[in-house]
């Protein structure tokens, strides 16, 4: 979940009310955000530099770190948070966002060249006129772009935002895609002019920007935005030009979002203009820009139209489980920034037309409206109304079937524990080495499920046997009194082309004895006991009515002290003295015997 840092005092000023920390936490809890941390600017700096805790100054500004839901982009800055909470608390009416009245001729234009389709095909734009920045607002504006880049823009791959001082530019603008060598400009925070290909080299040492270079690197053309006088606005998604940089004095802001995903670009643009248009001369009014594609297709952005959704009262109360009046629902929806108008229909089948504002891209379906009604009503108020005696579980009494594999596993686990073995529970992920080489086994690539993106060698493969985990447990318990008798019942996975995903689990039992001697007969005895408890008779070799054992030749066991277990004619496992080389590989100083068998054949 993304976290937004806001100054506590600024937030309370924006809300028009101060809260105790506890009261604010309660407000957050009921709205569905969380006060994650309370800190100060200086404490953050100290933490970053790993400095000792100093005594904080009384006058240090308190920062609230607030966790917001991942689909609420409108809450990613103080302005949006405060707007939503003001409306939620009833301090403010739902804002109505409108486009400024601009004539067809006067509207700013963005011409899109067709080459852009090779690299980053979409652009959407808007203008915030007569905005008043101060230091805090300006920082918030920059931070919001950062947050959007990190979240919905997927680190600028899907959308990249550029904001410009419109008074330093001259429309109409063009969005082009040109060979890197033919683009030259002074980038933000630099003094000199760079060619785009040089700039890419230059930024390879820039900690922040180098992460974005891969998005366009190697492309024959780079996306670039120009104004009428061929001033470069930006080289998306890398950097803006220095010429049009916004400052505290900037009055008119030109916003452009270039994208590979048009839906997300529109959401990003709407988030920017709905949160910051409150600082404009005409509050909540945004000046549109016409985007004209090379084929003549033209669009006016931002698209601030509301999305209307028809939702019935019975749907809402039916899903929440609390009976609600139509007027009440309208009020509750208003608290969540949703206008609701009762549509003219007969009184029994009351229904609403709910207007979803451009800031609420998270609302996809009437069920999202239902959730907002439930939140505004209060989950915990519903809890008080809920018939507490387990409606959901009483609803049906049915006869159940136990899952035979799990039921059988539990029975076997208890039997093995009853004969004196202690259960362990080890990891399913392991290194390739542990799964093969350390067990003297060869990896013929036909057996193991292999992870493509492991963080460390510990997570390279899914175990194909329980043996590595059991041996690692012994190695980590060298000081435990001998003999050690441990076992595990768990799943391994192997490749299997007959399964839809190409692999399957198998339930195995493994047990180990470790002491002054290897205890081969003890493990042999355990095999007999497991068979006895399953009612399987000991038969002579070749007989398929029961089980027998015969000498085997597995690399993980000592030659001459190992056997395969044949159950009804099929091999289901092996046991033996663990090969001394294998013991050395796992750093185990004492002799061990081990059995591993597939228990699914007993089902």
């Amino acid at each position, binding site marked *: *979940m993304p976290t937004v840092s806001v100054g506590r005092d600024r937030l309370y000023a924006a809300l028009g009310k101060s809260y105790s920390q506890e009261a604010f936490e309660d407000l957050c*809890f*009921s*709205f569905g955000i969380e006060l994650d941390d309370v800190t100060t600017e200086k404490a953050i700096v100290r933490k970053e530099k790993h400095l000792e805790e100093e005594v904080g100054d009384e006058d240090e500004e308190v920062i609230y770190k607030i966790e917001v*839901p*991942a689909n*609420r982009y409108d809450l990613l800055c103080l302005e949006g948070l405060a707007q939503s909470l003001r409306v939620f608390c009833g301090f403010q009416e739902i804002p109505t966002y409108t486009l400024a009245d601009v004539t067809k001729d006067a509207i700013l234009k963005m011409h899109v060249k067709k080459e852009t389709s090779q690299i980053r095909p979409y652009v959407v734009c808007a203008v915030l006129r007569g905005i008043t920045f101060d230091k805090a607002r300006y920082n918030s504006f920059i931070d919001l772009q950062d947050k959007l880049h990190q979240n919905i823009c997927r680190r600028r791959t899907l959308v990249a935002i550029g904001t410009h001082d419109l008074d330093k530019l001259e429309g109409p603008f063009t969005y082009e895609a040109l060979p890197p060598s033919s683009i030259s400009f002074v980038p933000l925070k630099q003094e000199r002019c760079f060619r785009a290909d040089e700039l890419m080299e230059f930024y390879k040492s820039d900690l922040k920007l180098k992460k974005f270079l891969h998005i366009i690197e190697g492309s024959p053309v780079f996306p670039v935005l120009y104004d009428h006088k061929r001033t470069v606005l930006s080289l998306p998604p890398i950097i803006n030009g220095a010429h049009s940089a916004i400052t505290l004095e900037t009055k008119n802001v030109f916003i452009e979002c270039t994208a590979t995903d048009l*839906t*997300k670009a529109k959401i990003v643009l709407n988030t920017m203009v709905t949160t910051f248009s409150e600082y404009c001369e005409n509050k909540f009014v945004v000046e549109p820009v016409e985007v004209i594609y090379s084929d003549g297709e033209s669009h006016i952005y931002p698209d601030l139209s509301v*999305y209307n959704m028809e939702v019935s009262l019975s749907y809402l109360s*039916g*899903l*929440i*489980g609390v009976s609600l009046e139509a007027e009440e629902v309208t009020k509750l929806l208003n608290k969540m920034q949703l206008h609701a108008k009762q549509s003219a229909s007969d009184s029994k089948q009351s229904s609403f037309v709910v207007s979803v504002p451009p800031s609420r891209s998270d609302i*996809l*379906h*009437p*069920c999202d409206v239902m*959730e907002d009604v439930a939140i505004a009503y209060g*989950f*915990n108020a*519903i*809890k008080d*109304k*809920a*018939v507490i005696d*387990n*409606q*959901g*579980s009483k609803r049906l009494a049915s006869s*159940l079937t136990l*899952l035979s594999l*799990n039921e059988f596993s539990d029975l076997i686990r208890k039997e093995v*524990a009853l004969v004196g073995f*202690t*259960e*362990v*529970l*080890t990891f*399913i*992920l392991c290194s390739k080495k542990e799964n093969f080489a350390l067990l003297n086994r060869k990896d013929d*690539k036909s057996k*193991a499920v*292999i*992870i*493509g993106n492991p*963080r460390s060698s510990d*997570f390279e493969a*899914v175990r194909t046997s329980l043996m590595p985990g059991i041996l690692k*447990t012994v190695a*980590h*318990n060298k000081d*435990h009194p001998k003999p050690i008798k441990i076992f595990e019942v768990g799943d391994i*996975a192997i*490749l299997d*082309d007959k399964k*839809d995903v*190409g*692999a*399957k689990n198998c339930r195995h039992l493994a047990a180990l004895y470790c002491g002054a001697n290897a205890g081969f007969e003890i493990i042999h005895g355990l095999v007999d006991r497991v068979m006895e408890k399953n009612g399987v008779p000991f038969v002579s070799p070749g007989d398929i009515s029961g089980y027998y054992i015969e000498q085997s030749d597995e690399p993980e066991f000592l030659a001459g002290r190992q056997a395969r277990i044949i159950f009804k004619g099929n091999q289901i496992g092996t046991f033996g003295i663990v090969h001394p080389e294998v013991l050395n590989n796992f750093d185990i100083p004492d002799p061990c015997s081990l059995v591993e068998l597939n228990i699914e054949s007993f089902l």
Partner: protein
Amino acid sequence: MAEEAILGYLEHNDEIKDSGEFAEERKIEHNEIVNVIKSLHGFRYVDAEDIKRESWVLTDEGKIYAEAGSPEMQLFLAIPEEGIPKDELQKKVGPSLFKIGCAQAAKNKWLDMGKQLISRKVQHVDDKVKVLLLQIQQGQVIGSDDIKALKARKLIVPQTWKGYSVKKGPNYAPKRKQVVTDLTRDNFQSGEWKELEFKEYNYSAKGQPLEGGHLHPLLKVRSQLKEIFLCMGFEEMPTNNFVESSFWNFDALFQPQQHPARDSHDTFFLETPSTTNILPEDYVQRVKQVHESGGYGSRGYAYDWKREEANKNLLRTHTTAVSSRMLYQLAKKPFSPKKFFSIDRVFRNEAVDRTHLAEFHQIEGLVCDRGLTLCDLIGVLHDFFSRMGMTKLKFKPAYNPYTEPSMEIFSYHEGFKKWVEVGNSGMFRPEMLQPMGLPEDVQVIAWGLSLERPTMILYGIDNIRDLFGHKVDLGLMKKNPICRLGIE
């Protein structure tokens, strides 16, 4: 003999004042007397009190001088009347005796150390050191200055002598009864047990450690949770498939393909088998459509849904992947309501620390029925968590791509004195259920939590590696108590 002597003596006398003297009078080894006194004291036949005496004994060096005379005397006697050159004298008495003897004799002013010759300064001397050593050897007391001097020359060392003074104890008897520690087959069958006295048992010590098998703590908690689910009428889902396709793990759950959870730094994607072989094609089409353009009353996410993304195999990140398969199967038949649960391993490609591992166990419960409500969900959660001993719950709105509403579950922890998050819950979105083909009025309410977290709270474990994996201490596993959920 010693025991009879002590008990017999005390029959007619009040006290043995000094065990040392007592031993000497009766010509019994003092050590033997001491052992008997300790044993009689243990059974309270007698009460014994410690006596300590400091005395001096000769060192090995001291013993030699007591016999042969002090080094200074030996040296003195080796000097002829006319004197003797230094080298010759040293050769005569040996270098070590020469060195010590010279120093002491010079101190006593017995010698003239001339440049050429060493000669006697006085004609007659007494070997005081030898006399003193002999006196100590005989146990006589000598002056404290002399003790100091001999001690400094390491000729004597102190020795502590320990003995006892002994009186009758509360259990005194002139003859000791035989004591035993156990009822044996012999003393039982012979009837001898009637005459025997049983040694007092040490009730403050622990009994003998027992050997046996043990179940794993985490799986003990799993068993109890299974019981809870079974009591509530839930049926277990088969979760024995770690390898899953992105389709069932994400797409079927209406989780968009650009969702951060689908990034490689959160999920283990597979090199082998890298992609899934088969998906149900008609269902895949419906899922694609609901992602791209919505339907069933939804706007959808409006992006290009890619089949390649859905085909990618992974290690399941949640057991909800299994739930989606189960619900899809359910939708293929005429509808009948179901309550399902599972508790099994899931995998996250996350950094590991004290509370996070790359794999853990997810507990999941779901109810699928017509007309379920948020109230029903809260009711089931209340029932479930009460059975685990968590009765004080509150719910926070949250976001989850496949549930709406989504609620985080908090429980008030009396020990920590605060609200702690104990799980997540919600109602599955229509965009997930309806493409499966479930009837429109069918709702699914579901919740999930990890098995490790409540277990760690229950057993007071603060490092997850102490609970799960190969680094656990087998000793602790064996001592782990039984799991009784819901009992504080």
